């Protein structure tokens, strides 16, 4: 049995757990704990502290594992561990919380430094009224036009599939460039 993995990362409350939950064939193995910080508690009640874990069985010989990283900065020691051997990674960003954009950029750069693997950026919560336009987000995040910034709704399977497929297309493209 061969296994490959992808990592879903991003700031606190960007929708990583929901993203994995939408597409995983098993219930996401989540390590959530109640939030103690007052500011963060206003955003949600529980957060991932070690990782989220989802699975997609491709065929009898191949399984894809999806790992979600903890979003809070104090658990960033998990990031490098989770990024080992990843096929690629997805940076989730809450389109309606511009105050997290800077952190998202920092997480993106940190992961780029861990491994030269392909990645895409998912502009999540595009269904929310306050969501920023994708192109405005690209400017705010100072993302190179070559980097895929994809509109996303993490609770919507079709949207999640589209992000995963775009990442896989990027992997194929980089393999061709490398060859």
């Amino acid at each position, binding site marked *: 049995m061969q296994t490959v993995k992808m990592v879903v990362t991003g700031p606190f409350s960007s929708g990583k757990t929901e993203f994995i939950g939408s*597409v995983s064939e098993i219930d996401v193995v989540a390590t959530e704990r109640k939030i103690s910080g007052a500011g963060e508690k206003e955003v949600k009640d529980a957060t991932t502290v070690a990782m989220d874990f989802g699975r997609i069985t491709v*065929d009898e010989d191949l399984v894809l594992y999806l790992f979600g990283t903890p979003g809070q900065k104090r658990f960033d020691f998990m990031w490098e561990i989770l990024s080992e*051997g990843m096929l690629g990674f997805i940076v989730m960003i809450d389109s309606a919380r511009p105050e997290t954009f800077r952190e998202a950029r920092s997480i993106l750069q*940190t992961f780029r*430094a861990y491994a*030269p693997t392909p990645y895409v950026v998912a502009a999540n919560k595009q269904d929310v009224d306050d969501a920023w336009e994708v192109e405005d987000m690209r400017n705010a995040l100072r993302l*190179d036009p070559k980097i895929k910034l994809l509109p996303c709704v993490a609770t919507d399977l079709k949207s999640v599939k589209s992000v995963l*497929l775009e990442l*896989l297309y990027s992997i194929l493209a980089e*393999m061709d460039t490398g060859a």
Partner: protein
Amino acid sequence: MALNGNLRDFTVTQLLNLVNLASKTGTLVIEGPNETAEVSFRGGKLAYAMIGRENGSLASILHQGKRLSANQYRAIQQRAGHVSDKELGLMLINAGYLSQEDILLTLQKSFRGVVRDLFTWVEGFFHFENNKLPPDDKISVRLDLENLIIEGSRQLREWEQLQEEIPSLEMALKFADRPGADLKNVNLSVEEWRVVSYITPKNKISQIAKTTKMDDIEIRRIVYGLIQAGLIEITQPEGVKPKLAKDMFPTQDVKEQKSLVNRLINRIGSI
């Protein structure tokens, strides 16, 4: 209890705060990645500070503080090299070159500078030697630590912000693809020009820092400023790009790797 540990767990600002609150007397020795610093305190006040290989003699500090000309400094080294700092201070005052206040203010400025440098140290081990003071022939001062602690806290916040903006120095820089931007019209400092002159995707930020002799915080500060101005962007170092991580596939065979990705695409497409 012995006061020792790692700067990762206990910052220089926190150490100064502790010395201040406990009115400690002794010397804080910090072993950084490249050099060692010794900072002495008397009753919780800064008394003396020196970083490793620096010549911490009074003559050298006065020369660096522009209180002695190069000729005067050379003459002192030749004729009075064996004279202690206290004796030299007295000689300069008696000869009317400098006042006692001049000397003390220059020393205070120099010691403050050493402590400011220490605020940028984030790696290293420290230990506090109780009751150890600088040698008797050295001139010590009495400086309150509160202002330095406030300054250090500010610098720490800046450091944290810069680290968030530029988490890795192992990335390269490139000029932004903005047709309107022209470096000639931008007022850059000498340090910024030095960094700019090395910007190419071939050079990692860490290499630029090494070449321009800048520490982590200095290079991050300059790079951050140039990024904010929209002049440069962070990029993968040249040569790294198409190299995919070796361990990302369970097989090294490229055909199998492609087949694996295609199977993933088919499977996800069919969910």
